[in-house]
């Protein structure tokens, strides 16, 4: 019997007030309010090198009708931004412990915003002292392998942006790189066009302020909003896929 497949909208790259470059208004409650208003089906929180605010967003979204994926935007040694998505909160928190041993203890410099840790009621729990904008000491290959060892998905972020995009930093994407897809800002950019055929391609907002949430989305054709279906869609299995507009 054939599965009934549906269309789902997704914005899988959103920062919270924990990211040093994001606005303070990106608090768990406000983000959730905005997602509800826009009626996006699936969202992922992806702060720089940290999963500390995911619990807050999860608590704030309780009872609401959208699916939350657990993500992180890791800065590799080559200063490439790499998105990691994980099945469970436990998986991403375990990955975080591993990552912490690869992130140097440099204080967050004053030029950046405070890195605010908040709960589901938008109460400030504390401030992250490590500078989350710094690269970890692992290569992109090592980081991808680690994400996979925690059963996660590895996707280079905004490959068509010069700063921190894989093509800008490393010139090109090696065929042997074990990534599960790519993310681009603009599917019509020259860089995106040259890799679209080789990889499943996501487009997300990379929101650093509330107004940016949902500005770019990916549409998935799959059975439901589970992480498992998301994996199928990336691999193009069982009719699941990413739709191009």
């Amino acid at each position: 019997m054939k599965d009934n497949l549906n269309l789902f909208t997704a914005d899988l790259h959103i920062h919270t007030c924990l990211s040093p470059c994001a606005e303070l208004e990106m608090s768990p409650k406000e983000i959730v309010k905005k997602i509800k208003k826009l009626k996006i089906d699936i969202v992922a929180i992806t702060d720089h090198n940290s999963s500390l605010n995911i619990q807050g967003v999860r608590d704030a979204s309780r009872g609401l009708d959208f699916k939350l994926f657990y993500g992180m935007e890791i800065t590799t040694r080559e200063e490439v931004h790499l998105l990691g998505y994980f099945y469970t909160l436990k998986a991403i928190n375990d990955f975080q412990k591993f990552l912490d041993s690869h992130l140097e203890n440099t204080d967050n410099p004053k030029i950046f915003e405070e890195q605010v840790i908040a709960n589901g009621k938008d109460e400030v729990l504390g401030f992250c002292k490590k500078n989350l904008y710094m690269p970890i000491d692992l290569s992109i290959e090592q980081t991808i392998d680690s994400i996979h060892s925690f059963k996660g998905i590895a996707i280079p972020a905004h490959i068509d942006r010069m700063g921190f995009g894989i093509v800008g930093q490393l010139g090109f994407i090696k065929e042997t790189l074990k990534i599960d897809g790519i993310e681009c800002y603009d599917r019509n950019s020259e860089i995106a066009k040259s890799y679209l055929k080789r990889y499943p391609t996501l487009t997300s907002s990379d929101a650093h302020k509330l107004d940016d949430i949902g500005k770019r989305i990916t549409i998935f054709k799959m059975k439901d909003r589970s992480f498992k279906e998301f994996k199928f869609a990336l691999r193009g299995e069982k009719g699941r896929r990413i739709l191009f507009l």
Partner: protein
Amino acid sequence: MKLKKIVDKLKLKVLSGKEYLDREVKGGYSGDMLSDVLANSKEGDIWLTVQVHPNIVAVSSMKGHCAVLITNCKEVDKETLEKAEEEKVVILSTKLDSFSCIKEIVKLMKDEGQS
């Protein structure tokens, strides 16, 4: 000027391509974004970078640089060095930063020009 002269004067470590130190240094380029190096560096350049990723070998070989000089260097991936040997790419390293190296290299180039 021969590459060997820079290697000797700056006391650089030769990590790959020991047999190609008689290459002629035509110019230099400094950059850590490989897309920028691909777009703007020239054949015969000595390329200074902090990147150690294997892609530097492909970029350097494509552009026909005389060598890659890794500055602020702690450690280089094994894969990078293996590829470099295959591709006949010279990889040099130093603990000095790029600016300090460039000052010395320019000095050497000027001396060479006058003699």
